[in-house]
């Protein structure tokens, strides 16, 4: 895909391309010697993450929702929706995410891939079922993962628990997941969720719940975007035959529009957020054509959902009674 003229100009305007940049670098060169001649020791910044107001309390699921939406949709905010629909939806998301505890389940076409409970800063991630639409699992062969304090407990496929003192000890597979879960504890992504939907409409229902519907217009996913680092986007990338990084791959484009649905309960808290889209068609033999299970069938409707439950119920998340400690 050719780079747009605007981005080309932006890249050309990189300060590194300016004639005086090399001169500036040379002036920095002596810093190395000066710095290394000073005594090492405490100084500078603490690596402790900055404390931020916790607007969204927990969110691999929400992250999933955003990731899904980011992959399948455009990022156009607005449309012709009444502003009140956005405001109300935002309020519901904010109220939900402010809950100190709860459970969320990520499902694809009614198959629950995992459930995640949180209580304060404690998180329990539990493996669900496998789906032919998704390869692999964020937990790998393991059954559960608990984040308690700085420690991580992992329940292996044989049911036994292993305790790791920190995320750094967990290993290359689970370590990033732990970091992502911790990072998601602090993020405020309600705006991001809403930003992907246009034409958001709010419909009160007879049972007292409120239905929000919106469209996510079809768009090429920017091939420059790196979608391989996040578990859900990685799943989607696989679902799409890794076509997201290849503008020529038919999997890189979804037909028409995808739909966002959100249900808010009488209590003003979100019950479910869903993204629905159709698997695109592609010609046999085309590189990067989606090819996994039902996803190979053009027109298959795929729905990813995040469902919330037990919000504010203060469910305990405790360390297992017995575990084997592993130290690095």
């Amino acid at each position: 895909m050719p780079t747009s003229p605007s981005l080309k100009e932006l890249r050309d305007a990189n300060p590194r391309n300016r004639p005086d940049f090399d001169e500036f670098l040379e002036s920095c060169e002596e810093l190395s010697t000066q710095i290394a001649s000073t005594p090492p020791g405490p100084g500078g910044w603490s690596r402790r993450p900055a404390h931020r107001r916790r607007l969204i309390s927990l969110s691999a699921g929400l992250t999933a929702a955003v990731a899904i939406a980011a992959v399948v949709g455009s990022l156009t905010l607005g449309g012709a929706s009444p502003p009140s629909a956005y405001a109300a939806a935002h309020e519901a998301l904010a109220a939900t995410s402010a809950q100190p505890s709860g459970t969320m389940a990520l499902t694809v076409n009614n198959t629950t891939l995992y459930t995640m409970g949180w209580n304060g800063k404690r998180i329990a991630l539990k493996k669900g079922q496998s789906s032919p639409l998704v390869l692999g699992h964020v937990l790998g062969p393991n059954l559960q993962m608990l984040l308690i304090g700085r420690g991580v407990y992992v329940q292996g496929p044989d049911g036994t628990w292993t305790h790791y003192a920190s995320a750094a000890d967990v290993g290359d597979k689970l370590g990033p997941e732990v970091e992502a879960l911790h990072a998601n504890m602090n993020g405020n992504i309600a705006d991001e969720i809403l930003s992907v939907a246009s034409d958001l409409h709010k419909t009160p229902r007879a049972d007292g719940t409120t239905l929000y519907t919106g469209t996510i217009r079809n768009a090429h996913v920017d091939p420059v975007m790196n979608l391989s680092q996040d578990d859900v986007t990685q799943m989607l990338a696989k679902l799409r035959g890794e076509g997201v990084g290849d503008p020529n791959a038919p999997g890189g484009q979804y037909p028409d529009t995808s739909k966002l649905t959100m249900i808010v309960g009488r209590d003003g808290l979100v019950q479910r957020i869903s993204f629905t889209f159709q698997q695109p068609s592609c010609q046999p033999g085309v590189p990067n054509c989606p090819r996994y299970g039902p996803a190979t069938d053009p027109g298959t409707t795929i729905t990813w959902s995040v469902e919330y439950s037990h919000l504010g119920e203060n469910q305990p998340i405790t360390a297992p009674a017995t575990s084997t400690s592993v130290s690095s």
Partner: protein
Amino acid sequence: MTDADMECRRHRFDALFREHVAGVASYCRWRSGSSSDEQDAVGEVFLIAWRRLDEVPKGDEARPWLYATARRVTANQARSNARRTRLRERLRAHATAAADEDDPLVGRVREALATLGTRDREVLLLTEWEGLTAPEIAVVVGRPAVAVRSRLHRARKRFRAAFESQVPAGDSDAMSRLAARPPMATAPARSTTFPSQGA
């Protein structure tokens, strides 16, 4: 700390410095407002890295760590320099205007960037100028990677719209002329061309 430990430490720091000084310098340059600030910022970033070398991640993860540190350093600089900001802005505006006379397209880029919000602009430039990936930017700005991707996508769209809106009326070929300009070197994603110390 033994002499051998110290030597090992210096060796690691030297390698870290050589690999990342260009990136950190570039980042500090567009984050800072003056040439004296940018050099101070680079020095401060690497001084922190030196003093906290045990905490600096190894491998590719060192880069976002350094950028995150540079982000804090430059933010602190901005706060402490608040009294001088107005004067600096005037000087910078003058300097930029002079540069724009050489290349009006740079001015157009600058104007399009100015229409973006601070966060959008930061994410866009970390990608396009510094070559950072979304997960790396997430470390730098302290946001989830998916949020960064979202913001990046939106920032690109907004930048493109702002940039294209500046094409002079009646100059319908302007965009194609821009596209036809020969490419210039862009920032490498992983490496620098900083000369070795002995060179």
